[in-house]
């Protein structure tokens, strides 16, 4: 267990002081920036709409996948590419401890970043008079669980992808912005194969304005929309599957790390 704690702490430190956090911070600053720029110009009535569209648009479509790409994809593959993995696997600790520790570190950092961004956005919007309307449709407490579950699902999946593939970046980007962006927005049964869909359902069901938003985006077009609980279970399932694949693949792989040029 000490090993898990050690690797967790070190990975946390790597993620927090790494360069990649800048990308995530930029993505986090984006909705806040938009809100700050747009806020003064807009009529008060639109404030709920902005809150939901920024959450549904920027957070779900950009921030979550980007956080997972930045933090989760490289958890294993970065250490492989740099060759530092050698120091982790030639120590008397079972291999799965490394995967679990790194996964926990991701969860901690991703949660913190998403909550910070969400609180930041909320705070900026609340500066406007009459912004209390946000809480009527559902504030942070309403949207946060869905966003965090989304981050967990993406993280688990990308941890798996980053362990199985040697250069996972392209796979990750294509999945996050190609597959997800496409399938998640096409009406019909295929969107059940995308992660965004479940996140949107959870947000939609938790907020009044979100429900309208869902209808606007043809997310809720009548029949067969899963319940919030079912969505949550699917998201957690994806996470667990990703982590399991990562542990399995990491344990089996032989890392012949060669001299880095």
């Amino acid at each position: 267990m000490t090993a898990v704690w050690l690797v967790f702490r070190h990975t946390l430190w790597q993620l927090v002081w790494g360069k990649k956090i800048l990308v995530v911070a930029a993505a986090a600053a984006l909705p806040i920036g938009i809100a700050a720029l747009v806020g003064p110009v807009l009529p008060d009535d639109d404030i709920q709409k902005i809150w939901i569209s920024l959450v549904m648009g920027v957070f779900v479509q950009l921030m979550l996948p980007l956080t997972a790409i930045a933090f989760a994809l490289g958890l294993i593959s970065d250490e492989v590419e740099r060759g530092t993995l050698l120091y982790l696997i030639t120590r008397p600790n079972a291999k799965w401890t490394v995967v679990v520790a790194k996964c926990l570190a991701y969860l901690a950092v991703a949660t913190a970043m998403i909550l910070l961004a969400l609180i930041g956005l909320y705070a900026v919007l609340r500066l406007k008079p009459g912004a209390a309307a946000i809480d009527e449709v559902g504030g942070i407490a309403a949207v946060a669980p869905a966003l965090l579950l989304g981050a967990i699902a993406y993280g688990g999946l990308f941890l798996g992808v980053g362990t199985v593939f040697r250069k996972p970046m392209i796979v990750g980007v294509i999945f996050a912005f190609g597959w997800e962006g496409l399938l998640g927005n096409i009406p019909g049964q295929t969107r059940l194969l995308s992660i965004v869909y479940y996140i949107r359902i959870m947000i939609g069901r938790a907020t009044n304005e979100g429900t309208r938003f869902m209808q606007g985006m043809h997310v809720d077009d009548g029949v067969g929309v899963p319940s919030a609980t079912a969505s949550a279970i699917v998201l957690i399932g994806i996470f667990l599957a990703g982590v399991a694949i990562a542990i399995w693949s990491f344990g089996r792989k032989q890392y012949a790390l060669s001299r880095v040029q």
Partner: protein
Amino acid sequence: MTTNPQPEPVTMKPATMKKTPAPVDPSAPVVLNHVSRWYGEVIGVNDIDVSIPGGVTGLLGPNGAGKTTLIRLMTGQIRPSKGEVRVLGESVWNNPGIYRRIGLCPDLDSFWETMTGYEFVRYTARLAGYSAGDASTRALAQLDRVKLTHAKDRKVGGYSKGMRQRVKLAQAMVHDPELVVLDEPLTGLDPVGRREVIELVRELGEQGRHVVVSSHILHEVEAMTPRILLIHRGRIVAAGEVHDIRAMIDEHPHRIEIECDDVRALARRLLEFDDVIRVAIEDDAKRLRVETVRPDDFYSRVPELAIETGIGIERMTSSDDNLEAVFHYLVK
């Protein structure tokens, strides 16, 4: 250094001893049991059946000979395609517990660059299972041992190549392993550093630890240990003490250069012996080049000859008795 070279049997080994594989000793620290490993179509090592005895062993071979594969196999980074690798009596693949007893200094130049040297070594010590307090003491002791104390609080990213090498060594020794595997530990070190690390390796050997060290610089290997393991094209070519190996290679006559007062007189005497197959007088008529097929007999004879004839032999050297010659003969 305080160790005297162990006395060796002076009996000549018969020619038939040539290329008889040494018996594999199953209790040796490292035992490779008919191990092969290939990467896809490419073969890394081929049917290696050898035991590496305790003490310091130099691992030699040209680039691409399979040294790195052998080291990866010994340290459990990869699994043999065939055969079994046992280290310190345990199987290494998928056996994390063995790393309590093995230390590895890889040839990779990779670090978590933003850690300080101290943090790095301490982290590896903690991963090896030491408590926070123990890990700190051990890290400090090892950093001192590799003479990095003055730079321990600087980031590894700002270290010179030699310092990075030292920090890797400290990391390999921090948990007091029984077997230390050093892959090219002298790379990037300056002459002073080289001398210190050579000294360190010998010290480890004297403390009763087992060391496998690979290097391209043959005279430095010679300075660390007389015992080598020579690998070429994925197979073991020779294993044992350099001078014994040289004695076993009889297809190449041993060349000896002698400098003395009266070269012609000495030449005449030498030609009387049937193991001497060629005597040549160098241009300056001050040096002889002698070739013998039974160096042992030859050397036994020289003191008597020198005293008897009274020709002052000022110098007698052989470029064929060192590691360089062995290497070049065996690695064609």
